[in-house]
């Protein structure tokens, strides 16, 4: 999904609001939400990919204006409603006010049937895929060529796992790109490493 969450390389932003040794939490409810997320995960109502996709499905206006932990809580609540644990009406009654949830999802796909193994040093191309559902492929590498550095651990294919489809474990590859190839003439010199699922890659002919 080409959502507003896919931020890598987007321009027009101001300075990072950095202060050295900043606290992870700006308020007590943020710290508690962080714990709630872990606990809710342990309850097994949804998996990590469903959770990430629920964050992505927030209305872009809401998402961009929300703090990180408002996004976290919105995703959890959305999944609890979608999984039938509660209803939006119940949440709003308990909260004593509105409770904006994420938009419904669409899509989902299973592992690429023609996925291949790659060796260290091999050049690979990221497939030019446009996927309506959850995908862990940042838009800035789509269609681009890089070099495989390491074959990483096996992980359930998120595009399927986020949508209740059969998700076969597959490796992710540590793929090295050059910023000059990702944004020709438009990036500072750097090497960019992205962990890329096998199903997203094809051999360079």
């Amino acid at each position: 999904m080409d959502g507003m969450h896919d931020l890598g390389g987007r321009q027009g932003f101001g300075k990072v609001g950095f202060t050295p040794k900043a606290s992870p939490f700006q308020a007590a409810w943020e710290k508690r939400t962080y714990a709630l997320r872990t606990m809710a995960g342990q309850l097994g109502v949804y998996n990590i990919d469903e959770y990430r996709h629920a964050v992505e499905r927030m209305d872009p206006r809401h998402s961009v204006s929300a703090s990180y932990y408002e996004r976290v809580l919105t995703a959890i609540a959305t999944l609890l409603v979608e999984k039938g644990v509660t209803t939006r009406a119940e949440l709003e009654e308990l909260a004593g006010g509105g409770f904006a949830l994420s938009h419904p999802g669409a899509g989902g796909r299973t592992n690429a049937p023609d996925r291949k193994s790659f060796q260290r040093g091999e050049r690979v191309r990221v497939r030019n895929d446009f996927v309506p559902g959850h995908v862990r492929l940042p838009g800035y590498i789509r269609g681009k060529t890089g070099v495989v550095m390491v074959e990483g651990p096996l992980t359930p294919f998120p595009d399927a796992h986020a949508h209740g489809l059969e998700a076969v474990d597959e490796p992710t590859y540590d793929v090295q790109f050059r910023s000059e190839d990702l944004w020709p003439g438009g990036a500072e010199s750097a090497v960019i490493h992205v962990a890329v699922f096998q199903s997203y890659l094809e051999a360079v002919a």
Partner: protein
Amino acid sequence: MASQDTQQAPNASMEQRLAAVERVLEVRAHDKGLSVDGTMEWQEENLLAENGAKVVARAWTDPAFRQRLLADGKAAIAEFGIGLPAIQRQVYVLENTPAVHNVIVCTLCSCTATTLIGPPPNWYEDLEYRARVVREARTVLQEMGCPVAPETEVRVWDTTADTRFMVLPMQPPETIGWPEDKLASIVTRDSLIGVARLSGTGG
């Protein structure tokens, strides 16, 4: 303005919304022996940049450990009793040198190696850092007070899968010979992300 399908009444406060979700999960959590308070306590004790700092101090003082750490991060941190959450399959430890500066981001959300780095600082989750650091890392690092020399290669690691990253910062020369626990005390969360250098005077 446009319709927002998902929104009618003004949102309740964050505290109220959080309380509502907690309430909904209360019985279910209790049945499994879980609680938000308990989880919070566990996190306070376990998700700590101090963990990463200990690992770094050992790597600085023990070349054999450093080798093991760079070869298999997950196995090496297990020597400290530090584990990874089940979904985090591996940790790559990224060695900063005069020739290479590593920096970590998660452009799609805000994934981090929390058992080594702790919960990430707020700026790491913000749009600005996620959008900019992959495309203009040098400018961003400069703005953050961590300029990188032009001859040093910048490597940006985007956490797009369930492999996690931790930067192994360079040891400040003035700390050579310090004991491990004193070394650990100067290693900051920011340096484990790759946006700060360290000094022996606690810069």
